[in-house]
């Protein structure tokens, strides 16, 4: 969030007279160490990835095959569903994190008992290892022995086979993702809400606005930068999600919870390195195609 708003704010606020440029700005060679690290660890591997996605390589040798990997990848029957699942997963987790994160933040910035403790509780799942969360929920969501369905049984509901039922598997993982990630959204929202000057709420209250009206007309619009951050972060996170899905279902049953990242991983596992790299490039482009327009859209509205 800070990166979205700060540069312009600094630029307009900084009204001190311009100083001698040669004295203040750093020489270019100061950029070299950072530049070398960036080039070696980020730029070169990225360019190599694009190259390898055009080859068939086995670690022992490689052969240039043009765009065949991409053709194969888009013909891959599991991919079409994988792409679709990725979008569903990203939208569901992103949407729930925005709504629940906002609700929790409003609750946790309000006058409630044990606020500090409640805030830590909300943030706690973010700190736990994702693989650990996945394996724990795999046990909790076991259709017969899992605590979740045993609890539902007590109130007379027969719970679904969360991870083994093809129509539930993807959704179950998404719900666990929301449980784990909503703490981060809440913290971002809390920062956004707490930065709204109290006078606005006071003024609204003086004008006779109720709690809903204060939320609707003061909190929601003024926490907009926080909303943008939460949407972008959770959307990108959702599109790239792998660890939780792998720990919980490995894309199963069958291919019913396969997303782009797990399809890519499976190709790599099978030894199809070129194909797997091509899948990564496709995932990279997908994230850019979805997030960049969104980013521009939000920023245009902001200024």
């Amino acid at each position, binding site marked *: 969030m800070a990166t979205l708003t700060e540069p312009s704010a600094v630029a307009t606020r900084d009204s001190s007279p311009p100083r001698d440029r040669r004295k203040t700005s750093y020489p270019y060679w100061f950029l070299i160490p950072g530049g070398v690290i960036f080039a070696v660890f980020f730029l070169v591997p990225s360019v190599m990835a694009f190259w390898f996605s055009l080859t068939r390589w086995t670690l022992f040798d490689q052969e240039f095959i043009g765009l065949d990997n991409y053709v194969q990848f888009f013909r891959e029957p599991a991919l079409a569903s994988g792409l679709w699942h990725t979008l569903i997963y990203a939208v569901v987790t992103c949407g729930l994190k925005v709504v629940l994160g906002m609700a929790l933040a409003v609750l946790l910035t309000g006058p409630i008992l044990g606020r500090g403790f409640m805030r830590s509780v909300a943030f706690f799942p973010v700190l736990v290892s994702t693989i650990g969360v996945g394996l724990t929920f795999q046990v909790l969501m076991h259709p017969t022995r899992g605590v979740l369905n045993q609890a539902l049984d007590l109130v007379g509901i027969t719970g679904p086979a969360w991870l083994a039922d*093809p129509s539930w598997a993807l959704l179950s993982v998404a719900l666990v993702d929301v449980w784990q990630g909503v703490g981060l959204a809440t913290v971002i929202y809390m920062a956004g809400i707490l930065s709204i000057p109290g006078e606005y709420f006071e003024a609204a209250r003086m004008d006779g606005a109720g709690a809903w009206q204060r939320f609707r007309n003061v909190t929601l619009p003024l926490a907009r930068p926080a909303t943008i951050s939460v949407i972008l972060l959770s959307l990108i996170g959702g599109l790239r999600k792998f660890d939780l899905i792998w720990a919980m279902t490995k894309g199963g049953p069958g291919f019913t919870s396969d997303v782009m990242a797990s399809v890519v991983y499976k190709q790599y*596992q099978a*030894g199809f390195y070129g194909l797997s790299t091509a899948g990564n490039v496709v995932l990279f482009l997908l994230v850019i195609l979805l997030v960049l327009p969104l980013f521009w859209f939000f920023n245009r509205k902001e200024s």
Partner: protein
Amino acid sequence: MRLSAAVLLAGVLTVSGCSAGSLGSSSDANGKTPITFLTNNDPANVKVAEAVIAAFEARNTDIDVKLDTRPQGSEGDNLVKTRLATGDMADVFEYNSGSLFQAIAPQTNLTPVSGESWVGDLDPTFKQVVTANNEVYGSPWQNITGGGIFYNKPLYAKLGLQVPKTWADFMANNAKLKAAGVAPVEQTYSETWTSQVLVLADFHNVSAADPGFADKYTNNQAKFATTPAALAGFQHLEELKKAGYWNSDYASAKYNEGLAAVATGKAGHYPMITFGVTAISTAAPDNVNDVGFFALPGTDAAKNGVTLWEPSGIYIPKTTKDAKLGAAKKFQAFLASADGCAAEASATPVGGPFAVKTCKLPDNVAPAVKDLSAYVDAGQASPALEFLSPIKGPALEQITVEVGSGIRNAPAGAKLYDEDVKKQAQQLGLQGW
């Protein structure tokens, strides 16, 4: 700047320091030749490795074998490939035979051992799956195993059932088991690899119906979806699911639960490979003798036989040289000797016959292994498709889960698998794809 240069230099020194350490001489402090043996980290497998190393060191006091382990499955495959590609492989290592063996480029990476005296003792089918370009590269690690169906013997006795030789007999047995209130066929889709057995173990029946299938399949002339005998494996899955013969928790059950279910009589059948005998002895130790084994029934009772899985091999990379190479060759030869087999058998219950002619099965083998040996001795056996062809599609386990769960029907599953096979063949650069 100076600081970062110093940090960089320190980093370089640390890295080079690391490799300098491992360049030491070929014998250690006590004058022994140290070699490293790399195998997978399955607990039962590690137990065997430890027993074999102890027996080997007792006979070769001048050699010190250090055990190193790697993950199982495709993660381990990638590790082996990476270590071979970077010239960093252990002195001796255990790895798959058959199609996966061909994928590690034996000619460029491994030391051929065709001239060794023990090669003549190898079972011919095993020799074939560790051979590339007429050179033999490996000695066997553990046993030949058979794919088929584990059945509960007390249940069969109680209900007066006979071991089925055709699919129709098998379905009739299932109907009686269901009427008796037990799950006729166990499936364990929480561990997806277990779902493939009904398709893969059916290969003896496929090759009985069409002896040239493996070659035609490799040359892109035969497909699972269009060859009735090959399609049968997928149809079996669909049929059993539709008849309601699975255990109720098939979608979430695990391999060990499946073994325990068939051993204790909760389920009548469990399609599995006989290496499961080793795990039954930990999953249901009191019931090992209650489990029998029969080959997957096909259409023709006269051609009934079992599909065999060859053991993985013990290989020496080209990077092993001088004294270490001599020691590594001795270790490799030991595993192809009667003493080596005995050491393997002493650690865990064996899952099938040995691939070495001089080795004898111990008398106390599990009944399921005796059942398997009967097929092998009678010559009613053929190797699994993955040992006759370099192609095995990687997504078969997901596809069989889908067919067995009713998500996809048998013809669609077979067709999808043909696509998967095509992809594998293209990646291997085979002709005609």
